[in-house]
């Protein structure tokens, strides 16, 4: 793996083979979809058209092969876009609908965004909504399919007018006669009047030039907010099924403990209890209310064994640097032979929890050989896979409906609560809802991996940085078998997601990065920002230390070591923009006790620059203001982008100042928000977001790349104020 390979923006668009097929008959609605099949490496697209599906109600039978983008236009001219990503609050339903509507020339008033599920618009890998990849991966395919549909409607519209295609124009969900704009047929009318089967063009229709975009690049209002402000939006915790009862599950006293012995005890005779379910390694209760189910758990006769007694210092000893060995993930030049004076520092990021406001929740109805699951999940494909294994059903027999998600941040994969609801429903023979308590969510999920980073660099007498060495130690993300695969680790020698953001993109002649895989007996996995969070903290703090060691301005230092080419230009624009907006060059005029800190980030295609203004009074650190310039390539929805950045900054400030999960005797010491407070409105800095659109394609995401740049900007500001370095989160004076 070399730096150059890794730091390139993601390949634009998708490389895929397209084949087309016409299905069915009837004239009620036109639906069109495209499949990207197979493992993500072998990408193949199949475009499929089907006139048989009516808009609205669930299809009588699922399409033989569900395309990942499913678009229907009914005779009423309403376009239903089945969005193949889950709405976590990031506004993805709106953003993807904007892209489709633009290319299809839809009237925004006639667009309805709906959640795709396992029956429509489902691809188990693609629907996994994480890693800030939704827009970059879908921008090109959605436009291509939109253009195809638009051109088919244009051709058919012209035919129905008895005119040449050149004599009509499309716009606002209709086809117009150019000479006489009063004559128009809506898409719905064209579809209703269509005789015979639709024929798909054999070549890809041309995409609109960006100068003609109507929705892409606009701050279109979110499509999901009316339901959200009226309380109508349906989340996993809100699902109610006929005859549904409530489940609760016994939890181990320590991580890794398993049931040595489990018996019903007198749980069955407790009030309101419907069933006690004991299966290998699992004990739960189904009752008429959540309270009664939880109360009855206390009456089970359980004995746990094994489990870890690990404590916080032991975890930090396991996840530590510097150390021998490790896997080389970047090597440019000869670090050891570069010579020069050595500067070094070590950084640490503790465990933290997601604390998404909606705890884990799912409802399941398992009936013989089929199952229906409603779940707050970012990963419906993974949820289905884990449920299928747990209840011994074919994946195809399990219908997963992703609900609105009350915060994800990597925690909502449905691999725990979805499985629990399904197991309980199967055993009890009734629909069962399982909603975790905050205490369960705080203690029994997986959490942000603890990480430790060690950097050293050598500097010449003239102040040139000659070499840089970075060592990363982290526990698992993708190698956690609950959500990923431990096997991968044996192949790669790294956890690729924990290594994110760990490469050095600064143009220092000799560079080396080593990853140490440090598993701990406490479950860790996805968290907002993945590895780019601790790695960006370490690198960007160290860059500030290097700037100081070479008597350079932190901005000048970064500009001097920019990567070459287009990426360097994007960096330069972003860094200068945030410096200008924040008054970086005039920071000497700030009063005593106040200072600015600079940080940047490059995360999966997105370039970020952050300046934090911090004040220190007595024992109190306060982040007063944060400026952030961010360039993800093309910005599809500037206001939505700003919202993601604002949220990321709040998240970063909370992590930097407050959050830490501590383990004692093999269990989290905090149970609820009393032991794990979150940042509040009063602690929130004033935030300025500068979205920068570069190029005509989205190349990076927005939900995560900013998070990692916030703590180092704060730490660097603290160093400017106090003269001390803050190398361990959360920062304490």
């Amino acid at each position, binding site marked *: 793996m070399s730096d150059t390979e890794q730091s390139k923006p993601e390949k634009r668009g998708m490389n895929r083979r397209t084949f087309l097929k016409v299905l069915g008959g009837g004239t009620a609605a036109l639906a069109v979809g495209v499949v990207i099949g197979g493992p993500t490496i072998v990408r193949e697209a199949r475009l499929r058209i089907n006139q048989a599906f009516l808009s609205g109600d669930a299809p009588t039978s699922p399409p033989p092969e569900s395309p990942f983008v499913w678009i229907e236009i009914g005779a009423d001219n309403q376009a239903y876009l089945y969005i193949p990503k889950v709405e976590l609050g990031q506004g993805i339903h709106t953003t993807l609908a904007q892209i489709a509507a633009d290319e299809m020339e839809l009237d925004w008033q006639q667009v309805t965004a709906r959640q795709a599920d396992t029956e429509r618009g489902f691809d188990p890998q693609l629907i996994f909504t994480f890693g800030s990849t939704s827009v970059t991966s879908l921008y090109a395919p959605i436009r291509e399919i939109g253009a195809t549909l638009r051109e088919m409607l244009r051709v058919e519209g012209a035919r129905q007018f008895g005119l040449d295609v050149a004599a009509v124009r499309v716009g606002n969900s209709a086809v117009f006669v150019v000479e006489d704009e009063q004559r128009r047929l809506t898409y719905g009318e064209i579809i209703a009047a269509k005789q015979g089967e639709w024929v798909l063009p054999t070549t890809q229709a041309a995409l609109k030039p960006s100068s003609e975009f109507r929705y892409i690049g606009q701050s279109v209002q979110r499509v999901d907010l009316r339901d959200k402000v009226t*309380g109508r939006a349906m989340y996993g915790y809100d699902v109610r099924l006929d005859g549904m009862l409530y489940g609760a599950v016994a939890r181990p006293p320590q991580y890794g403990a398993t049931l040595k012995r489990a018996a019903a005890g007198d749980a069955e005779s407790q009030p309101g209890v419907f069933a006690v379910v004991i299966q290998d390694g699992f004990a739960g209760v189904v009752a008429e209310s959540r309270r009664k189910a939880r109360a009855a758990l206390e009456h089970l006769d359980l004995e746990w064994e094994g489990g870890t007694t690990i404590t916080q210092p032991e975890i930090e000893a396991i996840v530590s640097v510097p150390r021998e060995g490790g896997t080389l993930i970047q090597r440019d030049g000869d670090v050891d032979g570069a010579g020069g004076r050595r500067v070094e520092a070590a950084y640490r990021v503790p465990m933290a929890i997601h604390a998404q406001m909606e705890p884990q929740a799912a409802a399941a109805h398992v009936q013989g050989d089929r199952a229906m699951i409603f779940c707050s999940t970012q990963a419906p494909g993974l949820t289905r896979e884990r449920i299928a294994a747990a209840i011994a059903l074919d994946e195809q027999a399990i219908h997963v409906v992703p609900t609105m998600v009350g915060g994800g941040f990597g925690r909502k994969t449905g691999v725990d609560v979805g499985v629990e609801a399904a197991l309980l429903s199967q055993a009890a023979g009734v629909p069962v809802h399982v909603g975790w308590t*905050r205490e369960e969510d705080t203690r029994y999920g997986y959490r942000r991996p603890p990480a430790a980073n060690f950097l050293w660099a050598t500097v010449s007498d003239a102040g040139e940085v000659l070499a840089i060495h970075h060592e990363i130690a982290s526990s698992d993300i993708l190698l956690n078998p609950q959500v990923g695969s431990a096997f991968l680790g044996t192949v790669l020698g790294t956890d690729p997601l924990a290594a994110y953001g760990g490469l050095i993109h600064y143009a220092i002649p000799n560079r080396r990065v080593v990853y140490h895989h440090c598993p701990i007996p406490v479950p860790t996995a996805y968290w907002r920002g993945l590895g780019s969070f601790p790695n960006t903290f370490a690198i960007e703090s160290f860059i500030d230390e290097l700037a100081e060691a070479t008597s350079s301005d932190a901005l000048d230092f970064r500009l001097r070591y920019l990567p070459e080419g287009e990426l360097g230009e994007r960096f330069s624009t972003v860094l200068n923009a945030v410096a200008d907006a924040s008054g970086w060059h005039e920071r000497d005029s700030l009063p005593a006790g106040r200072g600015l800190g600079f940080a940047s980030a490059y995360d999966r295609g997105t370039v970020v620059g952050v300046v934090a203004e911090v004040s220190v009074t007595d024992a109190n650190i306060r982040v007063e203001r944060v400026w952030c310039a961010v360039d993800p390539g093309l910005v599809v929805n500037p206001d939505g982008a700003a919202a993601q950045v604002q949220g990321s900054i709040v998240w970063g400030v909370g992590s930097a100042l407050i959050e830490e999960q501590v383990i004692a005797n093999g269990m989290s010491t905090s149970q609820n928000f009393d032991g794990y407070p*979150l940042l509040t409105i009063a602690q929130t800095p004033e935030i300025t977001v500068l979205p920068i659109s570069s190029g005509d394609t989205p190349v990076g995401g927005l939900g995560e790349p900013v998070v990692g740049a916030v703590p180092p900007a704060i730490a660097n500001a603290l160093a400017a104020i106090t003269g001390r370095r803050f190398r361990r989160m959360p920062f304490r004076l």
Partner: protein
Amino acid sequence: MQLSINGRAYEVDAEPDEPLLWVLRDALGLTGTKYGCGLGICGSCTVHLDGVATRSCVTPVSTIEGRAITTIEGLAQLVDDVEVLHPVQQAFIDEQVPQCAWCMSGQMMTAAAFIETNAAPTDEEINVAMGANYCRCGCYTRIKVAVARAAELARERGEA
């Protein structure tokens, strides 16, 4: 027991110490009121009791019989069968505040009760009034703007 919720009478069969939150959500299906912590810390479960913002997760249902309960489902008004959003709801859409929105029923109920008592709040007063409502998505910047906007909208409507 009898509960009056959003102007409607409900007959509920609940244990006296059952928190109002779970009666609303599980017994009555009013799932717009959200659960976040059960300890009175996060504010997700906020409803109005006789117009006062109250955390339903720590309110035993037996203590509120006969009082007027308003939940997020009852915040908008039906005028000639058309749903007219409360100024707070309108402002939260105008300012595009919610992200995941799990916290938002609580935020809006807190804000709605607050602007009844303070028609032109300052930033500082908003920080205090909204200071114990968590939002993990980090919508605080917009909440601040939207609460001020809601107060303004309410004034405009009052004058109209």
